C-alpha cells in the first residue's frame, strides 16, 4: 500500500459520494503548484472534481478550519485533522451530522526538503480515532518517535520569541483559533502593546497557549505556518501533556467528551497553589 493506492481509493470514494449526493462537497488536498509548496486545500463539488484530490507526503495543512461549508461536507482527514474535527464537534462549532470524516491512515508528512515535519516526527497517531470511512494503509515501519521536548527555561522562551514577528500566522492556521475577534486584535481593552517587543510576544503566545489548553490536537499547523521558524508549539505541548496527566483528557479522541477547561470537579487537586497541592 502506498500513497498512490490510497489516493485512488480516496478519489473513487469521493466520486461516489458526490455522485450519489451523500455529501455536497469534499474538502481535500489539491495538486501542488510547485515542488516547494504544500498541497493547497480545495473543495470538490462535482463528481469530476474528485479526480483533482491528491494524497501525498505534502498534504500538510490541517483541513478542519475550512469547515463548515454549505450542506453536508466530507473532509479528507489525517489523524490530526480528524481529531480537530472531533474537537470542533465537541465544542459545538459544527454539528456531527454535517460532516463526514474520511480518515486517511497517515505515516506523517514531510517538509519541502523531504524530511519529516517536526510535529509528524513526534506523532504516533496513524489512524483517525473517529471516522466515517477509513482509507487504510499498512504502515509497517513504525518510526521511533523523536523527543524534542527539550528543556523549559526562560532563555529558550526568549530565544524563540526573538524570532517571532507577530504576524499571527500560527493563529490563522490553527483549527482551534476560531474566535471572531482574537484577544490580540482587540482594541478595547488593548492587550497587545504596539511595540512588537518581548512583552507583546509573551502576551500573545502565552495568551494563545491558555486558549488552546486542552484543545490542541498536536497537528503542528502553527509551526508549519511559521515562516520565521519559531518553535511555537513547545509551550502548548507542555500544557497538553500536563492536562493529559492531571485530568486524563486528550482533545479530539472522544466525540462524547466535554471540553476539559469547561468542566470542573470537587476532586481536582490544587496544583501549584499557595500552601501546597493538597486537596481541599
Amino acid at each position, binding site marked *: 500500500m502506498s500513497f498512490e493506492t490510497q489516493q485512488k481509493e480516496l478519489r473513487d470514494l469521493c466520486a461516489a459520494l458526490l455522485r450519489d449526493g451523500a455529501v455536497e462537497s469534499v474538502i481535500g488536498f*489539491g495538486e*501542488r503548484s510547485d515542488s*516547494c*509548496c504544500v498541497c*493547497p486545500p480545495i473543495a470538490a463539488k462535482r463528481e469530476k472534481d474528485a479526480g483533482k484530490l491528491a494524497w501525498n507526503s505534502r498534504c500538510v495543512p490541517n483541513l478542519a478550519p475550512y469547515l463548515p461549508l454549505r450542506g453536508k461536507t466530507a473532509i479528507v482527514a489525517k489523524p490530526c485533522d480528524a481529531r480537530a474535527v472531533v474537537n470542533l464537534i465537541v465544542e459545538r462549532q459544527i454539528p456531527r451530522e454535517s460532516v463526514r470524516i474520511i480518515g486517511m491512515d497517515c505515516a506523517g508528512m514531510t517538509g519541502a526538503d523531504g524530511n519529516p515535519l517536526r510535529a509528524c516526527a513526534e506523532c504516533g497517531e496513524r489512524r483517525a480515532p473517529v471516522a466515517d470511512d477509513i482509507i487504510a494503509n499498512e504502515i509497517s515501519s513504525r518510526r521511533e518517535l523523536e523527543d524534542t521536548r527539550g528543556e523549559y527555561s526562560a532563555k529558550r522562551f526568549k530565544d524563540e520569541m526573538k524570532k517571532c514577528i507577530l504576524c499571527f*500566522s500560527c493563529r490563522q492556521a490553527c483549527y482551534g483559533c476560531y474566535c471572531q475577534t482574537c484577544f490580540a486584535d482587540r482594541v478595547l481593552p488593548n492587550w497587545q502593546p*504596539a511595540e512588537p517587543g518581548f512583552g507583546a510576544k509573551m502576551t500573545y503566545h502565552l495568551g494563545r497557549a491558555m486558549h488552546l489548553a486542552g484543545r490542541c490536537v498536536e497537528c503542528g499547523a502553527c509551526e508549519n*505556518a511559521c*515562516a*520565521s521558524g519559531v518553535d511555537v508549539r513547545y509551550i502548548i505541548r507542555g500544557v497538553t501533556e500536563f492536562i493529559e496527566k492531571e485530568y486524563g483528557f486528550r482533545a479530539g479522541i472522544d466525540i462524547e467528551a466535554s471540553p476539559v477547561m469547561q468542566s470542573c470537579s470537587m476532586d481536582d487537586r490544587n496544583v501549584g497553589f499557595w500552601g501546597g497541592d493538597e486537596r481541599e
Partner: protein
Amino acid sequence: MSRSDSISRDDLTRLLDVLGRDMRIAGPVKEGRTVDYGISSPDGLLMDDSVSYKSPKEFYFPQAERLMAFGGGTAEEEPASEPFLIFGVRPCDLEGLRILREIFLSGGYSDPFFRRRMENNFIIGLGCVERKEGCFCDKLGIDMRFSDFCDIMLEPDGESYHVEHLSGRGRAALAAVPQTAGVSCGVGRAATAPPPALYLDENADEQRLFGVIDWEEAAFPCRGCGICTFICPTCHCFEFKDSGRDGVISRYRCWDSCMYPRFTLHASGHNPRSARHERYRQRVLHKYLYVRKNTGYTACVGCGRCVRHCPAGMNIKDVAESVMEASR
C-alpha cells in the same frame, strides 16, 4: 570582464570590515532553521546562494516604527536613523526597493522617515547563481544576476565575485581598499532579462477583472494569515498605533496586511471587503494592476517568498497568470 573587477571572498570581507567602521552591517545570517537579515560582523554573513525568508524592506520601512512621542505638553519627532549597510540584497529585492521608493518618495508626498533611511543606507547587491524553487523573477523581466538599484553589485563567479560600483558612494567605498580600487563602473549597464511575460494591461477594467476568474475558488485555501504580506519585498500597507506608558504617548507606524479582515473595517462597522476572496483579489490586483496604474511598475518581483512560505500552498504566479490569460 577584466581581472580587476573580480574580488575574492577574503577581499570582500576586508571591504566590509572597512565599511563597518562607519556603519552597522546587516545581511543574511543563519537564525536557527531559517535565514534572515540580521546585524552581524562580516564573518557571520552568509555569502553563498541562500536567500533570507524576509525581504530587506524592514530596514527602510520597519515593522513598527516610532514616529513621534508626545505627552506632558511636549511632542518630539524621532531622530534620524543611524547609517546602515545592507549586504547581499538579491536583484529581485533591489527592484522591490525601487518600487517602494517610487511609492514612498514620488508623487505629492515624500515620506521623511523612509527618505532618511534611504539616504542613510549603503546597499551591496548580490546576484543569484540559480533560480530557487518557487522563484519567478524571469517572468517579471528581472535579471536574477544584476540590478543597478544599489551602491555596489556583486555577481558570484565561482569562488570569487565580479564587482561593479553603481554610485559615487560605491566607487568611494571600493577605492578605500587597495584590492578593489580599480573596479569598473556598472552605471548604464542594462539588465539582461527577457521582457516581462506576466503583467496585466494597465488600462484593464477593474470591474471586469473581478469577474474573469472565480476568485472564490482561487482564494479558497487562504487562511488570511497575512504572512505573504509580511515577507513580501513590495507590500507596504501600514496603520498607526498609539501606545501610552507613564504619561507619554508613542505613535507607531506598523505594518498592516490587506489579508486581515480589520484592514478595511470602517468605524461604522461596514466592511467593504468582508470576504476572504475579496481580500485576496485585492492583494493580487494591487500588485499587478493598481500600483502599475499609479507608478508604471508591477509591484511583484517574483522573489517567490509568498509561494515558498504560504501555509496553504497558494501560488500568486498561477493566479496572476490565469487572470492575465482570462483578461486577454
